[in-house]
């Protein structure tokens, strides 16, 4: 069992900066852009994205957090008990460009659930998906718009994203079971 | 018919006997207690039971049983009730009149007697109703029922609320020398209660039957017994208050006797938690202090008799909302092991316990049984007081299985039940 570091602290920051630039480029700036992070680590990355946008553009996009527990399609199979956390989207989503942020995209089911949740809040003009790591193995026809790093992983491996806010340091590791 | 029971510990409280010995039975009667059995064993056709290490006692007598026939044969019949009794070590049972039709006239009494003779394997003695239809209004055909075989009267389950009617009943029975048995309960005070009023009923939100509803009626009936001089027998005493009242009454010479049921001296109202309808009976299971008072009463003789209030109900009738479930549990097949616990706990001696289940109940209802003296009817129980038993309701001979004791580990195994010299049950 060997842990492999695939992104260190510097590369995590560089990756997020690049994604921010791509977001601004594609959306011609930050007008009508709102950032929504998926609990829990997606929220931290979303906050960093919002901070950088504010630094570059001088305006801070609206920030929301999404708990997708109530939208999961795998409640039936869960072995770990799913606690419902707060969802906070305290602004109107109609005609907004929603940047949906998660740390890792894997099967695509979380993203699907998040998209469904966002649609319940309103009718955004677009939803764009940000992920720090795309580890493949998609089970649904869902692709991220912005990817930090694409990894070829085995299903048996686990990708762990550590962030300063939650874990004390920035680092992405692949853990072999 | 000759039967020799050899080498057991023979306990016969009526004669004060408690020693290792033999009991010889011939033609349905106890013939002798021979010291030397060689001659009898040599005789042709004598059946021999080796009772070494076992207790040999008069067959147990339960003076409070509901046989349900006629009218409620889905719960129990005279046949199944008698089989249940035999399995529990009982050779005589006394059945209450709340059948359908109610045993309030001689023809119902005769029907029960006939059924018992033809289908029952133990002796059955009916109790007649006090009032017509147990309505508490006018006296039932008490004299005719007495002639037909009733050994006492009671409106069990439906206490006579009108004190004047009760007084007249108590006066009237004097002509026949039978006692009045009272289910002492003030029905108004009980209201819609379904369990003991206490912290458990408060917690469960169930209607409570206060101890007072028994106490006030015991008090009334003792007062009427004093007024009339009639022998009053108080059924299934459940409260500390009743025990106090009865003790005081006995002390001043009132002609009163009393019984307690094994469930009342074993369980408390906590058994009702989770709405177990098999812990629903009337009188209800009471508080621990009541239970301890009953035990004290059994010990000092205030309570004369152990009787089960065997009240069979079908599974379907009990698997309903607690409020709707009928009152009562079966008792015949758990009575002996539960009573032996009193002996194990040092509350009663073994002869003392046997006395409360044989000679005393026989004397109260004048049954002429409950002893192993020569000449007595050969009703005998042989049991192993130390053998472990696990209560298994599915093995009950009773038609009904409603017991709160299922799965309990107790001691006391009935090996033989002998009625009139005939083995009617053997393990």
């Amino acid at each position, binding site marked *: 069992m060997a842990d492999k570091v695939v992104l260190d602290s510097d590369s995590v920051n560089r990756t997020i900066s690049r994604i921010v630039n791509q977001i601004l480029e594609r959306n011609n700036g930050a007008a009508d852009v709102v950032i929504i992070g998926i609990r829990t680590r997606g929220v931290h990355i979303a906050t960093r994205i919002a901070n950088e946008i504010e630094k570059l553009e001088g305006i801070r996009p609206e920030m929301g957090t999404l*708990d997708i*527990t*109530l*939208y*999961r399609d795998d*409640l*039936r*199979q*869960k*072995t*770990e*008990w*799913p*606690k*419902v*956390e*707060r*969802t*906070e989207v305290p602004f109107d989503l109609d005609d907004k460009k929603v940047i949906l942020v998660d740390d890792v995209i894997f099967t695509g089911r979380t993203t699907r659930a998040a998209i*469904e*949740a966002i649609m*319940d*809040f*309103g009718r955004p003009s677009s939803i764009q998906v940000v992920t720090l790591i795309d580890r493949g193995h998609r089970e649904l026809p869902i692709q991220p718009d912005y990817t930090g790093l694409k990894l070829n992983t085995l299903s048996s491996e686990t990708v762990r994203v550590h962030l300063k806010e939650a874990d004390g340091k920035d680092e992405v590791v692949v853990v072999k079971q | 018919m000759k039967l020799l029971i050899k080498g057991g510990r023979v306990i016969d409280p009526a004669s004060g006997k408690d020693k290792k010995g033999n009991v010889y039975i011939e033609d349905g009667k106890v013939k002798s207690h021979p010291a030397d059995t060689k001659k009898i064993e040599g005789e042709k056709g004598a059946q021999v039971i080796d009772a070494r290490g076992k207790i040999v006692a008069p067959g147990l007598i339960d003076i409070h049983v509901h046989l349900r026939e006629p009218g409620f044969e889905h719960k129990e019949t005279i046949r199944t009730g008698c089989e249940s009794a035999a399995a529990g070590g009982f050779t005589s049972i006394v059945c209450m009149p709340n059948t359908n039709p109610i045993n309030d006239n001689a023809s119902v009494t005769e029907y029960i007697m006939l059924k018992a003779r033809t289908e029952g394997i133990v002796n059955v003695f009916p109790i007649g109703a006090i009032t017509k239809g147990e309505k508490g209004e006018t006296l039932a055909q008490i004299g005719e029922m007495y002639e037909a075989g009733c050994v006492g009267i009671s409106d069990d389950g439906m206490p006579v609320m009108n004190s004047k009617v009760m007084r007249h009943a108590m006066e009237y029975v004097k002509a026949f020398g039978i006692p009045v048995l009272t289910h002492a309960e003030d029905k108004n005070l009980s209201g819609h209660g379904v369990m003991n*009023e*206490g*912290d458990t*009923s*408060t*917690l*469960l*939100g*169930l209607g*409570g039957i206060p101890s007072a509803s028994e106490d006030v009626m015991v008090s009334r009936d003792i007062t009427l017994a004093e007024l009339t001089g009639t022998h009053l027998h108080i059924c299934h005493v459940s409260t500390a208050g009743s025990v106090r009242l009865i003790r005081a009454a006995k002390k001043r010479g009132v002609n009163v006797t009393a019984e307690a049921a094994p469930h009342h001296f074993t369980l408390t109202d906590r058994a009702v938690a*989770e*709405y177990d309808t098999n812990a629903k009976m009337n009188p209800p299971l009471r508080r621990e202090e009541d239970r301890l008072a009953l035990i004290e009463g059994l010990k000092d003789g205030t309570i004369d008799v152990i009787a089960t209030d065997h009240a069979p109900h079908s599974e*379907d009738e009990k*698997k*309903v*909302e*607690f*409020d*709707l479930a009928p009152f009562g549990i079966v008792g015949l097949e758990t009575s002996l092991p539960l009573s032996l616990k009193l002996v194990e706990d040092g509350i009663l001696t073994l002869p003392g316990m046997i006395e409360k289940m044989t000679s005393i109940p026989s004397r109260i209802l004048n049954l002429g049984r409950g002893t192993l003296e020569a000449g007595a009817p050969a009703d005998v129980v042989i049991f192993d007081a130390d053998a472990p038993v696990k209560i298994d309701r599915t093995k009950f001979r009773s038609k009904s299985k409603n017991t709160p004791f299922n799965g309990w580990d107790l001691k006391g195994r009935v090996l033989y039940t002998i009625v009139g010299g005939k083995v009617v049950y053997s393990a």
Partner: protein
Amino acid sequence: MAFERKHILGLEELNAEEITLVLDTAESMREVSDRDVKKVPALRGVTVCNLFFEPSTRTRSSFEIAEKRLSADVLNFTTIHSSVVKGETLLDTARNLEAMGASMIVIRHPMSGAPWLLAKELNSSIINAGDGWHEHPSQGLLDLFTIRRLKGRIEGLKVAIVGDILHSRVARSDIWGFTKLGAEVRVVGPPTLIPKYIEHINAKAYYNLEDAIDGADVVIMLRIQKERQDSEFFPSLREYSRFYGLTREKLRGAAKDVTVMHPGPINRGVELSSDIADGAEAVILEQVSNGIAVRMAMFYLVASARRTS
């Protein structure tokens, strides 16, 4: 911690952590209820049956909305006849509903313990929507939720429950819920309606209204059943109201920021005067809105426990 209960039958059997988890989950559900689209797919494909043996449109509606907001399929079975009258036993009725696919049964029944019977005999999850005089856990939880939102805590509060404690399932659930979370509970009413043994379940008994609400942070008024006046419990509604009806005058001794609750429906002028029912202290409508969120939380927790067990 994980919620591991297949049924919610009462607050007596829940511990403080479990109660807190329900309240926390209800916060998330309250957020769903505040959205334009008040619906999440959590219970999609689950059939929930509302089995009501009492005509309680209010409670049934609240449960039904909660079920629908979680995308459950809802089956309503309401009858004012008890099983005896119908000739079918409660168990047979419930088994029929289970055969129709219900995996969660919400039961309201006039007899204490009826939900226990179903929980013992059926495979479904049973949610008690009020049984006899026993418990009304969803009402207890929504009362806790309302007070926690309002005051930020339950611990240390003084709570007075006023009225017919003897026949009240709301009182029992409130007593368990508030005391488990650290509040002090007092009950007050005519002595005929205060169970003799109520202090065994951690509530202090009073017979005088002013004494009981002295310094109280929360006053919970119970609905008085009009039929009680015809029996021997108290002489008349007029006299009841005179001694146990809440008026501004009597409320003076309570804490300054006292909150007045009522499970509804209110008998105006009997349990409380209109100026209090409509006043700033009353949170009666807030209780109704919170009831939906709390019931959603109960469903979600039980459903998730079923799936993880």
